[in-house]
């Protein structure tokens, strides 16, 4: 409850009411940001670079995508000096954040610029066509350096004692008691909190998916979580958590993450501003692509809204993914490339040997595809086994036109992959090993015994949904 310490009445523990509240919050946020834009514009017009409030506002402003290299360097320096001021002044600085969403915007923009700078630097090195820029980048290897970005995020987390505060909250104690001088100020508390989500993102961009999830140990993914009140934060968190789950082969958990946020977005889309909605739309599409990949690995019943939208957007691709075999491989690659984060390398590229610089996206894709290839015959195996209760292995190998040895491997792979770690109310990384398939089998020599779990119809959900419709 104390997440709502900002003057909001405690909510009833009722999922729908919570969601309504979030929606209402979001409406307010959209209107508020309209006002903020004007404010910022007038500030930069007043030309008061020394005014700390305008620096705070500036830090939350997006840098133009096409900004020249000099502007990127300047922006880095501006962040460094701002964070230095916030972190290393004597005692906590006495500032109120310009808005409730400011802290998220700052951390988001800080990481976005780090990400795009690293990608840009790598591209310059790979193309080797702009010697001036390459020279400038070579001479400044520490600008937007990975260690400094991590340092800022970890320092904000430590100064704000946010981990201790979240721990107290979880135990239903007063977080203010453990927040310390810094953490009791909303500027530090907010920056610390969103730095945790920033870390989730940075670790994911560097390919450290388990550390990314570990970072979230102290944040509970519920609608009551603080990040849920800032739409972009809510969205980003679920995207990166879902993606990390997917890379750890926890497809069921990944689908749960993506579905949750996509359903939420579909509820709020009616009053999203068009510019903001554009960026959300892109991530939205990406998450549908990722759901398609996950569903191909792990067949499951999706929420009706998600299922319909998925069929609309990726119907053909999904069909090919689910059919498996070598024809599915290019589709996996296409969707992965389209939907993955813009991976980066934490160290400067080799400017002297352009060809030695491999795009990190290709690196992560290649490793992911190893697992895809290992599993690509599972759909075939399953589709046949479903038809029988017992089957001779050599006969089935004949149907499939493969050697018995090959089929033995396919059967083992498919069986081994039906065990998956699934989250159960503890930290994101923990989970129980569960059987995720309704098809099971065991071999007695060359005789395959097959059993299929019969899933009874689930009626409660259907009944409740229709009942609530009659009320409205």
């Amino acid at each position, binding site marked *: 409850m104390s997440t709502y310490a900002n003057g909001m009445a405690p909510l009833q523990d009722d999922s729908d009411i919570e969601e309504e509240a979030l929606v209402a919050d979001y409406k307010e946020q959209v209107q508020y940001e309209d006002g903020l834009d004007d404010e910022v514009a007038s500030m930069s017009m007043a030309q008061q670079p020394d005014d700390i409030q305008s620096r705070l506002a500036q830090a939350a402003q997006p840098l133009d995508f096409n900004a020249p290299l000099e502007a990127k360097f300047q922006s880095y320096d501006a962040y460094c000096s701002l964070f230095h001021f916030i972190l290393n002044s004597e005692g906590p600085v006495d500032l109120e954040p310009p808005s409730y969403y400011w802290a998220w915007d700052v951390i988001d923009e800080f990481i976005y610029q780090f990400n795009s700078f690293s990608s840009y630097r790598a591209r310059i090195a790979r193309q080797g066509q702009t010697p001036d820029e390459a020279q400038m980048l070579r001479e400044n290897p520490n600008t937007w350096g990975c260690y400094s970005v991590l340092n800022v995020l970890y320092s904000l987390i430590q100064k704000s004692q946010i981990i201790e505060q979240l721990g107290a909250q979880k135990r239903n104690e007063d977080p203010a008691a453990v927040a310390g001088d810094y953490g009791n100020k909303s500027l530090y508390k907010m920056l610390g909190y969103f730095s945790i989500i920033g870390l989730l993102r940075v670790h994911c961009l560097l390919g450290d998916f388990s550390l990314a999830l570990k970072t979230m140990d102290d944040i509970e993914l519920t609608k009551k979580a603080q990040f849920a009140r800032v739409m972009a934060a809510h969205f980003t968190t679920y995207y990166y958590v879902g993606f990390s789950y997917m*890379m750890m082969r926890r497809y069921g958990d990944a689908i749960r993450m993506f579905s949750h946020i996509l359903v939420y977005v579909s509820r709020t889309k009616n009053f999203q501003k068009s510019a903001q909605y554009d960026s959300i739309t892109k991530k939205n599409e990406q998450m549908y692509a990722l759901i398609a990949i996950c569903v191909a690995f792990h067949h499951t019943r999706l929420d009706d809204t998600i299922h319909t939208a998925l069929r609309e957007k990726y119907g053909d691709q999904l069909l090919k993914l689910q059919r498996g075999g070598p024809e599915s491989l290019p589709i996996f690659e296409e969707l992965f490339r389209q939907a993955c984060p813009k991976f980066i390398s*934490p160290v400067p590229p080799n400017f002297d040997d352009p060809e030695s610089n*491999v795009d990190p996206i290709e690196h992560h894709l290649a490793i992911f595809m190893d697992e895809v290839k*290992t599993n690509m015959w599972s759909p075939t195996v399953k589709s046949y086994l479903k038809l029988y209760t017992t089957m001779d292995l050599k006969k089935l190998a004949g149907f499939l036109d493969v050697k018995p040895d090959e089929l033995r491997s396919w059967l*083992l*792979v498919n069986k081994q992959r039906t065990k998956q770690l699934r989250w159960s109310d503890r930290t994101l990384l923990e989970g129980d090993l569960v059987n995720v398939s309704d098809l099971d089998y*065991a071999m*007695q020599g060359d005789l395959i*015994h097959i059993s299929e779990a019969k899933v009874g119809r689930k009626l409660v959900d259907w009944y409740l949904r229709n009942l609530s419709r009659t009320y409205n």
Partner: protein
Amino acid sequence: MNGEDPQERPEIIRNIINGLERYNPEAAGTLETYLQQQCEEKFCDSNANRALLKLYQLNPDRIKDEVITNILVKAMTQFPSPQFDLAMHLLSPSHSNPGPNSSSELAEAVSKLRALNAQLEGAQYDRFWATLESDDLYADLTTDIAGFEDMIRVRIAQLISHAYREISVSVLENWLGLDGEAKVKAFVTETCGWKVGEDGVVQIPRNPENEAKKSEVREDVTIDMFSRVIKRSWEEIA
């Protein structure tokens, strides 16, 4: 996940990987010694090993080739699991994709190990043993890992027991990488505790995995699920 957080992990390592010390380049030495301990004492701490790879990722000047390959081989012994892939994701792209001009030994070793791992993940155990034999480089790469072949063999046997009730000695011979029926029979009876029938068929004891029991998943309906509806209808009347 297999080999993620082993009980053997000492306090000092726990402090490194759970705190900011994991970013201190000096911690690499401690983690390297710990890796050596894992190799000698036949356990695996993939979580700690990833912290070491992360330090290498951030400080490429510290990289020791044989440490990277040892970590990959240790991760491989955890098959089937994402451990090997998770370690691969932390390598620099240039270590896993030998460029046209590079003749990096590390890149070659990594791509060899990746091929080997793919065979274990793909349950192509006969090919795994053949690949291992095919090149002396594999012997070099696995030499630091005590009991590498035995660990793989035991793991394969365990996975077989999850899928098979009976299996012929000849299939086992290929999958376990053992020469001759006598060795296979000795291994399955002594190490696995399985029985060999007179017909040369190996009997594997029943376990929850190789039962393939029929089951029915039914929906559990509780009164709590309807609490909202009931509350609402009551409120509307009142």
